[in-house]
């Protein structure tokens, strides 16, 4: 894809910073948006076209699964994944049930680029 827009939702600034760094290393001209909570992400995304969303699970306020469910409904064309240190099978199952993907932390180039290189659904 030519130019993509990626949304990072994570209460950890360091985690967002690392993820942004990986994305821009592989796609220097892409736009990366950041939100530190589910609520902020939903507000930020209103009326904005997003190609990829990477969403943490354990966050203060709205959890990542709820956030992903809401964003999937409002942005059905986006490819969405949970990006979390919580590697429990129950969280993987919730991701599957929600219709989003699952990436276990730690963040690595291979994991993030593996997700982004699949493109967006239907393209």
């Amino acid at each position, binding site marked *: 894809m030519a130019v993509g827009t990626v949304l990072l939702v994570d209460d950890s600034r*360091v985690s967002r910073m690392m993820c942004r*760094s990986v994305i821009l290393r592989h796609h220097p001209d892409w736009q990366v948006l950041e939100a530190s909570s589910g609520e902020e992400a939903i507000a930020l995304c209103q009326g904005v076209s997003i190609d990829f969303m990477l969403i943490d699970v*354990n966050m203060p306020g709205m959890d990542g699964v709820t956030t992903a469910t809401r964003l999937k409904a409002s942005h059905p064309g986006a490819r969405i994944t949970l990006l*979390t240190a*919580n*590697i*429990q099978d129950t969280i993987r199952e919730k991701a599957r049930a929600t219709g989003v993907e699952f990436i276990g932390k*730690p963040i690595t180039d291979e994991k993030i680029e593996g997700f982004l290189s699949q493109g967006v659904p239907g393209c």
Partner: protein
Amino acid sequence: MLGFSELQRDAITEVLNIAIGRAAAALNQMVDDEEVRLSVPCLDFISRSEAARRLHAETGGAPTVAVKQCFAGPVAGDILLIFPESRSLELVRLMLRNTAPLEAMTELEREALVEVGNVLLNACLGSIANLFRRPIDSSLPVYLEAGGDAILNLDGEADKEGRSLDTVMFVHVEFALAQRDVRGYLACVMDIASAQAFGQHVEDYVLQAIGG
């Protein structure tokens, strides 16, 4: 008498080895595949005060930083990632590589360590939950800065000198990066009821694994 039989202890140590191994694998990925050396997990039934004293001794009484998460579910307790303060920055620099300017490191150090703790502690708890096939809920990670003896929560019944009389299951393991002077500890504290539940879940896991 508190504690486990030799066979139970062996099974518990094996489960802990798997969990801590998962955490070590996560750390290995965070520091560019540098080898992470692990000690054998040490499991004891001791008072919280004694656990704190041991931690204090192992860290040489130096200031330490820790990331703590409380967990609940089939078992409950506290799990901590502990570093001597002087070595924590080295780990943060390794982890962030060139993604942060050096002048921003001090400000970011705490947040970076919390994220390291988040990943490692959840790797540990997550693999235990997966082995037990039961979800474990955990709190958000909390950053602590104190002496090794003050890192452990000393709430509970105490003697006249303020030493905790609560007996707990105390598990700890030392890890180190093979090629750098970075070492730390993973520690877990459970009360007796949780320790017994933990033992029962380990037994169920072993029986299931051997087809019993």
